[in-house]
C-alpha cells in the first residue's frame, strides 16, 4: 500500500503547476527552452527546400478586413513631418556592411522592378489574414548596395517606438535573399497605409508577423546582432522573449 501511495503522491506532485514552473526556471531547463528555436530552425531547414515559396493566393481569398497590429501611428516628430509631406523627402538608408551605402527615395523604390504577392500573414497570437503586397525584393537592394559576403544578417531599423525603445528586426541571409522577401510600399492595390507601416514595411513570408517590421527607415547588413538593442535580434525578442527564428 505504501508504494501505491508513493506513486500517487509522486504523480500528484509532478502535476502541480508551480512545481513545474520551478523546474522551468533552473538553468539547464531555461537554457534548453531558449535553444529550441535554433534546433527547430535547423531541423526544418534540413527537411525542407531553402527556396520554397510561401503559398500565393488569389484576390478572391483576400481577408475582407486586414487586422492592424502593433503600432498604428508612430509618434516621433520626424515621422509626423514625413507623413505630412507624403514621404516626398523621406529616404531609405541602406548601410552597414555594404560597399555602396544608399539613400533611396520612395519614388525611386517605386520605380524599381516590383513584385506583387498575395500571401497569408500569421500572427504569433494565432490569427491569420490574407493581403496583397507590392514592393521591391530585398535581394535587389542588397545587390545594388553590394553587400559584403561577411554579412550574416539584415537589420531593419524602424520609426515606431514603444516607450523609449525603437522597433527593430533582423533576418538571416537565407530569408533576406528569399524571392518573396520584399520591402512593400503597396497593399491591396493601394499605397501602404500608415496603420500598416507606411512608407515601407518588410514581408518575410515564411515567418510570423512580428518579423514583418513596419515603418522601415533603415536597412543594414551586419555580422552579428549581439550588440544591437537587447541583443536578441528584434524588439519582441528582447522585450518578451519571443523566438528569434519565427518559422513556427
Amino acid at each position, binding site marked *: *500500500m505504501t*508504494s*501505491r501511495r508513493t*506513486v*500517487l503522491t509522486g504523480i500528484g506532485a*509532478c*502535476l502541480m*503547476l*508551480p512545481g*513545474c*514552473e520551478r523546474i*522551468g526556471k533552473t538553468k539547464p531547463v531555461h537554457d*534548453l*527552452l*531558449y535553444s*529550441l*528555436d535554433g*534546433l*527547430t530552425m535547423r531541423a*526544418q531547414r534540413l*527537411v*525542407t*527546400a531553402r527556396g*520554397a*515559396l*510561401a*503559398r500565393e*493566393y488569389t484576390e478572391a*481569398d483576400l*481577408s*475582407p*478586413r*486586414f*487586422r492592424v497590429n502593433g503600432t498604428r501611428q508612430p509618434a516621433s516628430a520626424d515621422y509626423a513631418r514625413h507623413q505630412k509631406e507624403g514621404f516626398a523627402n523621406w529616404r531609405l538608408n541602406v548601410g552597414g556592411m555594404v560597399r555602396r551605402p544608399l539613400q533611396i527615395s520612395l519614388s525611386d523604390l517605386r520605380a524599381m522592378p516590383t513584385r506583387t504577392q498575395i500571401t*497569408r500573414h*500569421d*500572427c*504569433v*497570437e*494565432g*490569427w*491569420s*489574414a*490574407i493581403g496583397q503586397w507590392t514592393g521591391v525584393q530585398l535581394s535587389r537592394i542588397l545587390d545594388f548596395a553590394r553587400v559584403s559576403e561577411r554579412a550574416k544578417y539584415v537589420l531593419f531599423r524602424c520609426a515606431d517606438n514603444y516607450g523609449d525603445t525603437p522597433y527593430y528586426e533582423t533576418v538571416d541571409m537565407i530569408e533576406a535573399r528569399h524571392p518573396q522577401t520584399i520591402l512593400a510600399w503597396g497593399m491591396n492595390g493601394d499605397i501602404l497605409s500608415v496603420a500598416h507601416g507606411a512608407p515601407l514595411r518588410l514581408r518575410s*513570408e*515564411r*515567418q*510570423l508577423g512580428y518579423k514583418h517590421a513596419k515603418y522601415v527607415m533603415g536597412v543594414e547588413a551586419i555580422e552579428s546582432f549581439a550588440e544591437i538593442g537587447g541583443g536578441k535580434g528584434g524588439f*519582441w525578442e528582447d522585450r*518578451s*522573449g*519571443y*523566438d528569434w527564428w519565427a*518559422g*513556427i
Partner: protein
Amino acid sequence: MSSNAKGPLVKRHRLSTRVWHWTNMVAIFLLIGSGATIFNAHPRLYWGEYGANFDPAWLVIDDRQSATGPRGFVNIGGAEFDTTGVLGVFEKGGETRMRAFPHWVTIPAEYSLSAGRRYHLLGAWIFGVAGFVYFFWSLFNRHIQRDLIPRKWQLTPACVRADIKNHIKLNFIHSGTEKYSLLQKLSYAGVILVILPVLVATGLTMSPNMNAAWPWLLDIFGGRQSARSLHFIAAFLLIAFIFVHLILVVLAGPYNEIRSMITGKLRLPAGDGR
C-alpha cells in the same frame, strides 16, 4: 470483479511501451498546459485559411461586462454558455482575471505567450521524437499489429457484445491470447494511430515555414486556420480520452494497473490463470 484476489503475475507491457508511455505523459502534460496559454493569446477559432477578429469564428471564449461585473462565456457555433469562474472570467488570488483558460490549467500560470510557446515546443520535441521512435519500433516488434489492431474474431457480433458486457460489469482484467480487449484496442489504436498523428500534422501546418515547403499540409486540413481548429479539437479528444483512461485505471485497480505500466507485470484475478 476480483482483481485484488491473488492470481498469477504475468508479463503484460513491453519495456518500449512503458518507457514511451511515461515519457509521452510528461510531454502531453506540457503540451496541454502550454497549448492553453497559446490559445489564450487569441481565443477564437475559424475555418479556412485566414481568420482574425473581424472574421466569423466558430468557437469563442471571451468576457463581457454586465451589471454585476464581468461575465465569462463560451460561444460554440452561435450557442452561448455562461462560464464565469471557469472560462473567460476567473479568480486568481482574490483578483478577477479575464482570460480564456484560467491559471490553474495554463503553463506558465501567469500569462506569457513566449514562455508558453517555448514549453509547447519542448513538449512537441519530446512528444514527436518519442512518438516517431515508438511508432516504428512498435511496427517492427509487431505491437501495433498484434496488440492494437483488433483481430477479426474480436469483431464478431458475439465477441463485441461480450466485451461491452464485460465493460459494463467493470470486469476489465482477463487472461487469454490478447493483451487488450476490443474496446481497449479501439481506443488505444484511435489515440496512437489517429489522434496523436493528427496533432503532429496540424501542429506543423500552423508553421509558415513548413507551409512554404510542404503546401500539401494546407490542402489536407483545409487551410491554416482549419488546421488550428483541428489541432484544438484533437487536443480536446485526447483530454477526453485521458479522463476516461484514468477513470478506467482506477476502476480496474490502480495499484495493479500502474505497476503493470512500470514493471511490466500484471496480476491476473484468482482463478483466471492460463
